[in-house]
């Protein structure tokens, strides 16, 4: 069994380096120390963690990460959503108001691609979906972002993508975390119970 506990080699064994047995007081101290460490591990395990990587910025693909993130926060989980490439537009205050649904190449659209490719079709498909969302009482993207942030979800904006898209750090919703990259995302994924790529 390996241990992450930073301790010297001697304390891993109940016997001292000279082979003599530890005194009862020393053993008791050691037991207390281990009990504390175990309690710490159990406390850590109580807090579920989830990391979502959001890579898509179309109107329909903005929903799943935000719905899962806000719901997970309601469970009391520690949630990070790392937004990269087109997924970054979800956090962009202006662009997030204008995310589009693509009518082309979407087999769920009740129209052939040749028709869907006509100018204005994406906009029309988006408006139709927005109306449905409104009729259904489904939250808007804006509401889900505010709700997630209010509940302590960490929405991260990939720094490389910010620069790639020539966005400004002020373009994003307040409380969005900027200045983070793949290493930060990986670190959160490594600590998470659930990792999703959307």
């Amino acid at each position: 069994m390996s241990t992450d506990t930073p301790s010297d080699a001697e304390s891993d064994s109940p016997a001292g380096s000279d082979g003599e047995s530890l005194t009862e007081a020393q053993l008791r101290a050691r037991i207390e120390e281990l009990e504390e460490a175990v309690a710490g591990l159990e406390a850590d395990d109580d807090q579920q963690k989830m990391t979502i990587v959001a890579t898509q910025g179309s109107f329909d693909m903005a929903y799943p990460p935000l719905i899962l993130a806000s719901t997970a926060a309601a469970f009391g989980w520690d949630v990070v959503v790392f937004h990269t490439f087109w997924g970054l537009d979800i956090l962009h205050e202006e662009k997030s108001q204008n995310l589009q649904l693509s009518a082309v190449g979407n087999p769920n659209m009740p129209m052939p691609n040749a028709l869907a490719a006509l100018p204005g079709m994406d906009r029309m498909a988006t408006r139709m979906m927005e109306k449905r969302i409104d009729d259904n009482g489904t939250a808007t993207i804006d509401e889900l972002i505010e709700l997630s942030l209010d509940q302590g979800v960490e929405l991260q904006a990939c720094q490389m993508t910010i620069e790639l898209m020539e966005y400004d750090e002020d373009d994003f919703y307040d409380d969005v975390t900027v200045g983070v990259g793949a290493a930060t995302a990986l670190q959160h994924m490594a600590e998470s119970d659930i990792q999703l790529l959307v």
Partner: protein
Amino acid sequence: MSEAFDIAETLDVKGASCPMPVVKTKQAIDELAEGEVLEVLATDSGSVSDIDGWAEGTSGVTLLEQVEDGDVYKHYVEKTA
């Protein structure tokens, strides 16, 4: 059946769909004191399974009862810690 307990607060999320019933329930529970009961009124049929699952997976809350009253789903959640 139902309402054999004192309701401290009623949350009306009629018309709202997933994830709002669960998220708003969590926010309302946060405002209650230990031992108080929240009544949630929803029209989202998914809220029956969702609030049950949420209560199951969340410490400090107990789902006491779920009642279907016409097209309204009533949920009674106690804050236990």
